[in-house]
């Protein structure tokens, strides 16, 4: 068990800066998820920690030890790869035992640890099989098993679920969370899937173009995104953004989107007052746009006229694609709604959860 610290870490591949001034402190026993679109530098950041890539500049610590020049095998880490990277010519047992054998662990200790890991992962009946005889989910568990038996200080996961089908992914997600509870070790997990990040992480680090955008708990990231990128990346369907301006009228503030004008809650007035008359980006999540007939009690619904473009029934909810003037946006409605395609309707914005971003810096105004 150990903390992990990135201190002003850079990684350049020729002209391309894959990781740009990354500073993160991952606490001992934390489950940190690095998330971002492909090419954002998250996998590179993980590989720098694993020692599979050399750091261009900066320092990485595991615990108190600087590991910049330490070989991967001496970093006391274990890694689960996206392709699992199981050794094809070895049995499941040998795959799991390989690292221990290389470290000259006594035979009966190897046997004990492999069997224990197999038990935890529910694969004791597969120990004699070769990887090619396993299903995708089983291979994934073997890959995790290979990491567990080593009892490392830090577990690294590089998109370990992306080769699984949707159902298995949900199941395995829960298993990995359970494993973290059980092992009480530092987990660093890379994914491009914000749902995985939200469901498993104790904290999420969102990256884009090699730069850390925000690091916080899943709920804080969702509720209080620092910038437009994070706001748009976390949440599905993504947050709706409108180019708008702030207008003051009669002591009250309004978000003026041209085709609509909605009132800003009173407690936010001091925050946004400086932006009166300035162009901003107004953000609101799909679940904060309601069918007025099913709006939750206690909110102050701001009416907006909209035309229904498309509806997508999900069973427990319905995604409604709307447009108001030039603005296209999506709402997440109660499935009992009677709204249908082509209707002109009035929808209700719950402005208590609104977001305003500076249009130049793209940073949240708070």
């Amino acid at each position, binding site marked *: 068990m150990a903390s992990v610290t990135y201190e002003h870490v850079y990684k350049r591949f020729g002209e391309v800066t894959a990781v740009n001034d990354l500073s993160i402190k991952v606490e001992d026993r934390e489950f940190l998820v690095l998330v971002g679109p492909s090419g954002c530098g998250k996998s590179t950041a993980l590989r720098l920690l694993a020692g*599979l890539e050399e750091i261009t500049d900066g320092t990485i610590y595991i615990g108190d030890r600087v590991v910049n020049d330490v070989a991967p*095998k001496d970093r006391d*880490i274990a890694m689960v790869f996206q392709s699992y990277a199981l050794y094809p010519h070895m049995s499941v047992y040998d795959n799991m035992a390989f690292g221990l054998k290389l470290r000259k662990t006594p035979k009966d200790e190897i046997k004990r640890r492999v069997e224990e890991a197999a038990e935890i992962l529910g694969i004791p009946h597969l120990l004699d099989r070769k990887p090619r005889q396993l299903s995708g989910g089983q291979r994934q568990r073997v890959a995790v098993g290979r990491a567990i038996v080593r009892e490392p200080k830090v577990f690294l996961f590089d998109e370990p679920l992306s080769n699984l089908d949707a159902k298995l992914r949900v199941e395995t997600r829960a298993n990995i969370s359970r494993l973290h509870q059980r092992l009480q070790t530092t987990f660093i997990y890379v994914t491009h899937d914000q749902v995985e990040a939200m469901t498993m992480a104790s904290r999420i680090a969102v990256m884009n173009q090699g730069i850390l955008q925000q690091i916080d708990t899943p709920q804080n990231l969702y509720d209080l995104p620092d910038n437009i990128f994070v706001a748009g990346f976390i949440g599905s369907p993504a947050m709706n953004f409108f180019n708008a301006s702030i207008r003051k009228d009669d002591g009250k503030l309004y978000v003026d989107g041209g085709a609509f004008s909605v009132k800003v809650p009173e407690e936010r007035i001091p925050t946004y007052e400086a932006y009166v008359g300035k162009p901003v980006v107004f953000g609101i999540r799909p679940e904060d746009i309601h069918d007025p007939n099913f709006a939750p009690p206690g909110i102050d619904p701001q009416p907006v006229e909209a035309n229904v473009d498309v509806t997508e029934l999900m069973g427990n909810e319905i995604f409604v694609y709307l447009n108001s003037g030039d603005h296209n946006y999506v709402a997440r409605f109660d499935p009992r709604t009677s709204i249908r395609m082509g209707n002109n309707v009035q929808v209700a914005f719950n402005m208590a959860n609104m977001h305003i971003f500076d249009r130049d810096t793209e940073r949240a105004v708070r």
Partner: protein
Amino acid sequence: MVQFASRRKLLSFMYYLLATLGAAVMILPFVWMVSTSFKEHAFVIEFPPRLIPANPTLSNFEQAWTANNFQLYFRNSLLVAVTSTLLVVLLSAMMAYAFARFEFPGKELIFFIILLVLFVPNLIGIIPQFLLAKTLNLRNSLIGLVFFYVSGSIPFNTFLLRGFFEALPKELEEAVLIDGGSYFTIFSRMVLPLSKPALATVAIFSFLGFWDEYVQSLTFIDDPLKRTLPVAIASFHGQHGTEWGLVFAASLIAIVPVVLVYISLQRYFTGGLTTGAFKG
């Protein structure tokens, strides 16, 4: 419809006929060799020729095996071919792995120079090689022969194996590094076992080449006791006449190791020809 069917039959008959003729052209000399090796010297050239000897005899084999230092030549050939094959497989694999996975200055230039050697016909190098062997005191030495065989085969096999190694998934090697292995562990425990088809291909072709090699052996070796089998068998052709039964019996014995090598590596070899089907 009927016309079409009969035309198809005719066509397939023609195919079979051509294939049979082709096979006969390939196989008949070999069958003739086998047949002659079982004939007494007096019946080797008889008229009309007989494919199945009237009085088959093993005497040619006995004589070939026991006389003329044959066993010594057989041993020499075996020693040279086996040692060279092992060295070629090992050294080519090590070089190919370095070219496939490591970055070092001048890598592609060095590889290009190695490939250049492939474009030079072997025989052009024979005189410089002879002089080199003389300077290095490697004439009349089986070790010298091994040296030249190995150095001559490394370029092509390095080229062949590099392509194969590059196709191996890199994540496997990274997994070994994290599991606690070194680059040598990767090479010996991952790359070599996973490349059996390619290594078997290299081994079979190298062994065949070394076992049959004639020109270099003839050029570098004067000492009759250091001769290899191809040179020795050629020497069975007498100045005043050739005992064909003997030559063919010796040649047949000489084929045995090749067949054994092929059979033992065959299952990897066929795999080697379908490299693309290999999946990490």
